Structures are given as C-alpha cells and as structure tokens.
C-alpha cells in the first residue's frame, strides 16, 4: 500500500496531527493539575507552554509533502499498470473515444481551415470582394468595366489599391497538341493587392501594362512543373497563345491559388487599349485591399459616394449602379458555413454520446472497485487523492483515445477532402499543431466529462459500510443512473438520426423532381475561346454553329446545342425587361431569368414547344463607327419565353410577335429588342431545387465564346467522349477540348455539398445509434450479472425462462422508449436548424420521425435481446452453489 501524499489535502492527515497534538496538551494539563493548579489554569498553562499549534502543524505538513510532479508521475504509472490489467475494458473505452475525438477533430480541421483561418495572403482580412449591381434585379453579373475600376481605385480614400481579373479557358499551342490553359486577365496593381510576389522572375512592368507594349505572362507553379518540369530557366521562354508569342516573366508560388484555383497564366490587360474604353462592359471580378484600420462600413460608404459621383458624371451607364462589398473570405466560403457548423454540432453530440457511454462503463467499474477504494481510503488516503487517481486513469484512457483519434482524424480528413472537392479552401485542410492542440483539449474535456462523475460517486459513502457489505450479498441492482445514461444516449442518437433522416429524404426528393428537361444521355464539353472574339458576333456565332453542326453529324449523336449556362446547375442571371408593345407601367416591372441558347437547345434538352415557332439565328451588321465590330441587325434577334413568363407577366395578351427589350445590359442594347416567336414548357433551369421562374431564352449561340456544348447521344454518353474530341480537332485544330462530362455528373456535383453533409450526418447518426446500442447492451449485461442470483432463485422457484427474457427485454425497451420520446423533441429542435438545408420536405415530417423511432426501437430490441436470453439460460443450481 503506497502512502498517499498530497499537497493540499485537509484530512485525514490533518485530523491525525490534531489528535496527536491534543493528546500532548491533555497530558501537560494533567501534569499541571497534579502540581496543584485548578483545571482551567492547568489547561491555559499547558496550551501556552505548547506554543502555536497551527504554526508547527504546517511544519508537519511540510514533512509529509511530496512534490506534485512526483505524485502525478506516480499516478500515471499506477494508472497505466491498472489499465493494462483489464485490457478489454481499456480497449473498448479507448476505441470509443478515438472515434468520438477523431471525428470531432476531423470536422474541426475543416472548420479551422475553411472558416476560422484568414485567407492565405498577407493581412488576408484586408481583402474585400467588390461588385457593382443594379438593386432592381437579381443577377450574378457584378463585374466591373475597366474604366469604372480605375475610377473607383482613383477616387476612394479607404483602399490601398483595387484590382480585378477575369478568366478564360484558352489554348496554348507551342506543344504538339493544343493544350487547354486557364488564363486570368488582370487589371493593374494585381500583385500589389494580393501582397504576393513571384517565386521566380518578376511582376509586370508598366510598359507591359500598356497597349502595344511587350507581351508578358506569369505562370502558376503547377503549370511550370507540368510544362517546364520546374526548370528555373523557364523564365524568359516563350508560350504561344491567342496566336501570339508571349514571354514568361515569372512563376508564382504554389500557395497562390487565387483568383481561381485552376489558373495557369496571369496576363495583364492594357488599360489604354481601344477595347477597354466601354463603360458598359462587364469584365472584372474586383478585389480591393483596405487601408489598415479601415472598417468594412467605412469602405462601403466611401465607395457608394464614389459611385454616386460617377452616376452624375455618366448618367447613362452609371446612374443605376451601386456598390456591393463583402470580405473576400466570406465570398470564398459562400454557403458552406451553415453546413460545417451543423456537422460540428452533430459530431460534438457524437462525442457526448461516446462520453456518456464511457461514464456508464466507468460507473459499472467503480461499483466493482468499491471494495478496493474503501480499503484505500481506510488506510489513510484522502478522497481527493483517490478521485485524482481515478481521473488520472480516465485521462490516460482519453489521451490514448485522442492519439488514435488523431490517426482517425487524418484518415477522415482525407475522405473529407475527396468527398468535398468542390468545397472552397478544401486544399488548405490538414492536420497541424492547432489540430493536435484541439484534440488534446478534447481529451481533457473527455476526461472531465467521463471521469469526474464516476470518480466522485465511486468514492462516496462511508468505508465501513462498503467494507461490511460484500458484493456477494447484493441483490437489488437497480443502477438507475446507468439506465438514465442509456436514455440520454438513445435520445441523442435519435436526434442525429432524425436530422440524417430529413436530409436523406430531402436528397431523395431532389432526385425525384421532374426538371422539365431530360438530363439523361447528355454529354457536355467546352472548347477554348477568347472574349476577344465577341467583337465579331457574326464570326463567333458562325464558329459555334459550325461546331454544333459537326457534332450533330457524328454517328451516335441525336442532337446538339450550346448554352451559356448548364440547365439545372444553380445559377441565376436575372435581367430587367420591357415589353415594347405593352403600356409603360413603371410599377409593373418585368424581371426574368435570361438564357442564351443556340436554336437547337429545346430539341436537344427535350423541352417542349407549347406555342409559336422555333428559334431563329439572328442576322448581323458591321458597326458603322467601328469596322472591327460586327453586331446584330436590328429586329433580327428572336427569343422564346417559358410558360411561367407568359403566365406571370403577360396573361391573356397576345405575346407571340411582341418584342422584349433588355434594360441596362451591355451585351443586348436597348435597340436589340428581341421578337418573341414562341412559348416553351417550364424547366428548372436555375437549379433542380428551384421552382421554374419566368425565363427568356435568347436565340443567340454567342455571346459566351466558350459556352457549354450539350450533346444528346444514343448510347452511354461517356463512350462518345473520344469521338467528340476527334471531331472537334478536325474542324478546330487550334482549339483545345476539355471538361467532357455527362450533364448528370454536373448536376450531381452541383449538389456535392448537399450530398457531403447528408453522407456525413448519416454516418454520424449510424455511429451514434451503434454507441447507444452498445451502451444499452453493456448496461443490461451488467445489471443481469448483478442479478444472476436472483434469476437463479426465481428459476428454482418455478419462473418460466420466457418470463425472464420478457422482463429484461422490457427493462431495456422502457428506457429506449423514454429516450426516443425525448429524442423526438430534440430532433424537432435540430430540424429547425436544418430547415434551410431541406428541400421538398417539411422539418416536422412525421413519416421521417416515426421511421427513425421505429428503427431505433428495433435496433435497441436486438441489442437488449441477447443479454436477456443469456440471463434466462442461467442454471439455478450452479448459481446458487457459486455463493
């Protein structure tokens, strides 16, 4: 028996000091009385003679004090030795914790990388995403004209600098085959705003940013490795793109993943080029770097003032516009914040269930160890010392769990990365010191959650009581606390299961919608193109139509078309329109989704024509003021509207033959009014989860130089991928073909986040249910072990085995039913959190909750059945003889 020394205990050592010293004083008093003093006087003298008792009690404590470090180390040694003596118990606890902590750390690593850390740029919190918008319409078209960007940059006083970029998928033709590269065209001050310098070479010189100056390009680290094998001599080499030879001036660092993760090249756009002078053009995705100490609100107010001045100066192009600003990080994260916190909540519940499970195990164990603990306390160890020792055991378990948990977390974040490729910043997720610290914090928390209560409870009660009451005489084993914990686990598991059920059903509902178009057997692809081609609309339109024609004539292809957006993949592009033939009624604005499609779009996508004629290609004229510009001939543009548009805006009026004018759009000018030639059926263009809204289809294969090509095939679409590539290579040898993917893949990718959270929550819920069942199983088994004698006795007295089974089964199920009832309530609360993420299903969906509860009951019944049957197999004589 080791002597328990502890620095801050009060008893029982202190009590011993007291009585030893008191004995001495009493003897002195007796002596004084014998010498003839009165008892009072004797005691007073004795106390005086003895001196300050408190003072040298402290000296006595000093004698017994053991350095805390030494005591802790000893505790750890004992804990490890003790846990090794019961390996199966230790392994169950460690694995449970590893799962709980590992899942928690994995989700936290994603939250840390995506939500908590600043963007990987110097002073990343100063970076702001800026856009212009017309408050009257919903549209992602928030890009800036080069001139306006320069105005903002010059006239504000809250930003260090403002820059912008746009990307194009182009061909690079210095190799044997044209290679698709993603080029980012950047406004001046690009590197300054990001605060990043090239790892090799240099940034752009002012001459390179001038029209007619030398061509220059910066490469991405990835492109440099792929194309030049990371050769440091690559700087100064030439690349061929856009039919031009451009020189490489530098290589950016690998960590520079913005503006677009895919970007291979950065190319400066000359501000003074003739084509940069249109205030109506919408080119740049805009980013600004705030001056230190400037707040978002100050910057917003400042830019709004700037834009208001521009509105007075250029009423035609600028008056309707205002400024949007948000931290670049927020824009990058987008909507995943809700999903991640939801998952974190779920995974924390899981950890809580794991801890509850372990509390039940430790309680059962503390009951078995009651005797040992009593002996220890009776031999002089203080309660705090014993609690401390029990906590050390829990901590050793928790740390072991956390270490395995880190391995689990590493594996889990790999799975997370591959499941969540589309998530922003997902490449930044990795395990580092912060995650290790977090995991350790988790294990300390788990120690307290799991260990404190059983330790306090296990050391309670008088020792004599425990010593005299041997385990053999124990008959009743209500263990109400353990059953309460099982109930808690069931309730939490039902909560998670309810949430998972709702997400699953909503995912199914999404799969069941009829989108109004037919996405099966559609192959999509891209062909590199340059925005410069849009100057000649005729050439661009003819080029795209020629490609579509060639695709359509390939064996195995039923139809082909192009569209600027993919049908069913969530995007919104709303424009404000005017019905030329209608009354001018300013209160009655027409706002509709705009789509640019080639005439064959509807037959390819199987969108039915309800009335009128099909699409016609527009005619073209050369701009009288600029011979390089070829535009649409007035009155030749045609459009189709969907049923919802006709119903919402022009019910009852004769709409075929009428004209629609786009307000405030640079591409379709007011005089490009389109004639409505027909009406088509409603389709879920803006996303499968969106009811079809009013939509206008402009029959224009352009303006996007790189539209999505949609090819309806008569066989499995991927089989035709190579044929398509060859077909296009024959007619467009200088262009690269890329992203050859079935439309259904795009649709499922579009809901990847949705799918990710559904899969993860379902996994967490399944784990929670398993843990709850293990808890139920363990507690029932434990309670049966304690009651073996009683069972034996009853069987000996004639009880039926089936009664025994029924009794224990019911004991387990009763707790489960109560847990389910509470869990239903919790799940209803959880569902309210989820309601934003649900589609086609109400957060109070009774079918889901009833199935969840039934599932839980079924699994719980299975878990309870096994120990109950085992209980009934007890041999009465054997059990009674054992005692």
């Amino acid at each position, binding site marked *: 028996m080791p002597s328990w020394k502890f620095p801050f205990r009060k008893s029982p050592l202190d009590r*011993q000091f007291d*009585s*030893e*010293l008191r*004995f*001495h004083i*009493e*003897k*002195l008093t*007796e002596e004084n009385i014998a010498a003839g003093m009165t008892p009072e006087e004797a005691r007073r003298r004795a106390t005086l003679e*003895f*001196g*300050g008792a408190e*003072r*040298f009690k402290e*000296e*006595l404590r*000093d*004698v*017994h004090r053991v350095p805390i470090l030494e005591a802790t180390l000893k505790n750890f040694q004992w804990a490890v030795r003790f846990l090794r003596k019961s390996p199966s118990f230790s392994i169950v606890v460690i694995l449970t914790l590893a799962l709980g902590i590992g899942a928690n750390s994995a989700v936290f690593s994603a939250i840390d990388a995506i939500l908590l850390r600043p963007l990987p740029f110097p002073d990343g919190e100063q970076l702001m995403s800026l856009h212009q918008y017309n408050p009257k319409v919903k549209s992602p078209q928030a890009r800036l004209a080069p001139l306006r960007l320069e105005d903002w940059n010059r006239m504000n006083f809250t930003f260090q600098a403002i820059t912008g970029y746009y990307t194009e998928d182009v061909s690079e033709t210095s190799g044997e085959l044209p290679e698709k590269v993603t080029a980012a065209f950047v406004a001046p001050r690009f590197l300054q705003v990001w605060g990043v310098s090239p790892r090799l070479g240099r940034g752009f010189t002012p001459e390179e940013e001038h029209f007619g100056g030398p061509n220059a390009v910066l490469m991405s680290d990835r492109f440099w490795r792929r194309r030049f094998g990371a050769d440091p001599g690559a700087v100064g080499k030439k690349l061929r793109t856009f039919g031009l030879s451009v020189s490489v001036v530098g290589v950016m660092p690998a960590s520079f993943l913005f503006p677009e993760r895919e970007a291979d090249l950065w190319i400066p756009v000359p501000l003074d080029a003739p084509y940069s002078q249109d205030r109506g053009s919408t080119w740049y995705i805009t980013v600004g770097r705030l001056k230190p100490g400037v707040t978002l609100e100050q910057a917003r107010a400042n830019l709004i003032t700037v834009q208001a001045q521009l509105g007075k100066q250029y009423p035609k192009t600028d008056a309707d516009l205002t400024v949007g600003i948000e931290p670049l990080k927020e824009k990058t994260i987008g909507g995943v914040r809700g999903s991640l916190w939801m998952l974190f909540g779920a995974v924390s519940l899981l950890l809580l269930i794991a801890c509850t499970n372990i509390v039940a195990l430790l309680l059962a164990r503390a009951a078995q160890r009651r005797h040992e603990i009593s002996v220890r306390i009776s031999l002089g160890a203080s309660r705090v010392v014993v609690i401390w020792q029990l906590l050390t055991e829990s901590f050793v378990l928790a740390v072991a769990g956390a270490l395995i948990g880190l391995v689990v977390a590493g594996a889990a974040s790999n799975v997370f990365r591959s499941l969540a490729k589309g998530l922003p910043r997902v490449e930044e997720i990795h395990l580092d010191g912060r995650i290790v610290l977090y995991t350790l914090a988790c294990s300390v928390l788990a120690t307290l959650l799991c260990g404190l209560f059983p330790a306090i409870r296990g050391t309670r009660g008088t020792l004599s009581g425990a010593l005299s009451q041997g385990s053999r005489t124990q008959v009743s084993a209500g263990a109400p606390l353990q059953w309460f914990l099982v109930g808690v686990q069931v309730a939490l598991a039902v909560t998670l299961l309810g949430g998972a059920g709702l997400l699953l059903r909503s995912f199914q509902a999404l799969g069941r919608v009829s989108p109004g178009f037919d996405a099966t057997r559609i192959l999509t692809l891209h062909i590199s193109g340059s925005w410069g081609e849009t100057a000649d609309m005729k050439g661009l339109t003819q080029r795209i139509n020629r490609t579509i024609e060639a695709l359509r004539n390939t064996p195995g292809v039923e139809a082909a078309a192009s569209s600027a957006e993919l049908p069913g993949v969530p995007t919104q592009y709303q424009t404000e329109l005017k019905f030329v033939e209608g009354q001018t009624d300013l209160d009655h604005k027409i706002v509709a989704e705009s789509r640019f499609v080639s005439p064959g779009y509807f037959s390819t996508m199987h969108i039915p024509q309800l009335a009128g004629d099909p699409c016609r290609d527009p005619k073209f004229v050369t701009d009288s003021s600029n011979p390089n510009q070829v535009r649409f001939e007035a009155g030749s543009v045609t459009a189709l509207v969907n049923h919802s548009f006709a119903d919402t805006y022009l019910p009852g009026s004769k709409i075929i033959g009428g004209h629609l004018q786009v307000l405030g759009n640079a591409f379709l000018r007011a005089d490009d009014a389109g004639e409505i030639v027909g009406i088509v059926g409603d389709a879920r263009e803006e996303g499968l989860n969106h009811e079809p809204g009013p939509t206008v289809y402009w029959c224009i294969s352009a303006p996007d130089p790189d539209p999505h090509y949609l090819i309806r095939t008569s066989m499995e679409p991927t089989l035709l991928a190579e044929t398509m590539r060859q077909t296009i290579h024959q007619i467009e040898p200088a262009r690269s073909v890329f992203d050859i993917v079935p439309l259904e893949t795009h649709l499922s990718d579009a809901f990847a986040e949705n799918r990710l959270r559904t899969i993860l929550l379902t996994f967490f819920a399944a784990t929670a249910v398993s843990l709850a069942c293990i808890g139920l199983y363990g507690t029932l088994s434990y309670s049966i072990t304690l009651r073996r004698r009683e069972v034996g006795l009853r069987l000996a007295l004639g009880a039926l085995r089936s009664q025994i089974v029924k009794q224990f089964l019911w004991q387990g199920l009763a707790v489960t039913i109560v847990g389910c009832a509470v869990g239903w309530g919790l799940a209803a609360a959880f569902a309210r959190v989820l309601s934003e993420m649900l589609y086609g299903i109400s957060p109070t969906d009774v079918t889901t909750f009833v199935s969840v509860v039934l599932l839980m009951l079924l699994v719980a019944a299975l878990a309870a059945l096994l120990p109950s049957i085992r209980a009934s197999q007890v041999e009465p004589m054997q059990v009674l003889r054992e005692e």
Partner: protein
Amino acid sequence: MPIEKSDLLQGTLDMLILKIVTLGPIHGYGISQRLRQISREVLLVQQGSLYPALHRLEKRGWLAAEWGESENGRQAKFYKLSPKGRRQLDKEESNWNRLAEAVARILQTAQ
C-alpha cells in the same frame, strides 16, 4: 542551565529520539518527558521541534507509528523503533561516541 534546540547539534535530536524509543513503544509526550528526566532537566525539547522530527523519522522508515490506547485510556500515537531505525541508531551512536571522545581528548590535552 537547560540546553534548547538551537544549541543541540544538528541530527543529535534524531539520535536521542531513536535511543528513547528503543525502550518500547511510546507517544510524543512520553518522549519529551523521558528526555527531560534522563537529561536531568538539561535538555528541554520544544514540541515545535519534537513532532516534525518524529514525523520525519517515521517518513524515513526509522520509526514505525501506530495508534493505540494510552495509560489513561485515550487514543495516542505510539512510536517504536523499526529494524532500519535500529541500524541507524547503532551507526549514529558509534559516530557520536567517537566524536565525543575526540572532543574530550582535545579539551583535556589542551588544558
């Protein structure tokens, strides 16, 4: 004139306690009484020195302690010599005797 703790040589008190305890189990009060009586009132050990010394010796394993009933029926803590303490006492006694002899010889010779 009584000699107080500060005048006792360091370690001497420990040895005296061990010696007293050889006579049989005895409590703290008894030890202080015996010290006084045997030294004929020369050595007056303060309780503030006695008890820490007792506990220190117990902790080193030279003394073994247990609670028992005193002459007048009250619970008291009794100290007795452990085998380890006995060896320690032998060692200290012979050291002391050699030291005392040496000191005495010097004092006599120098007279």
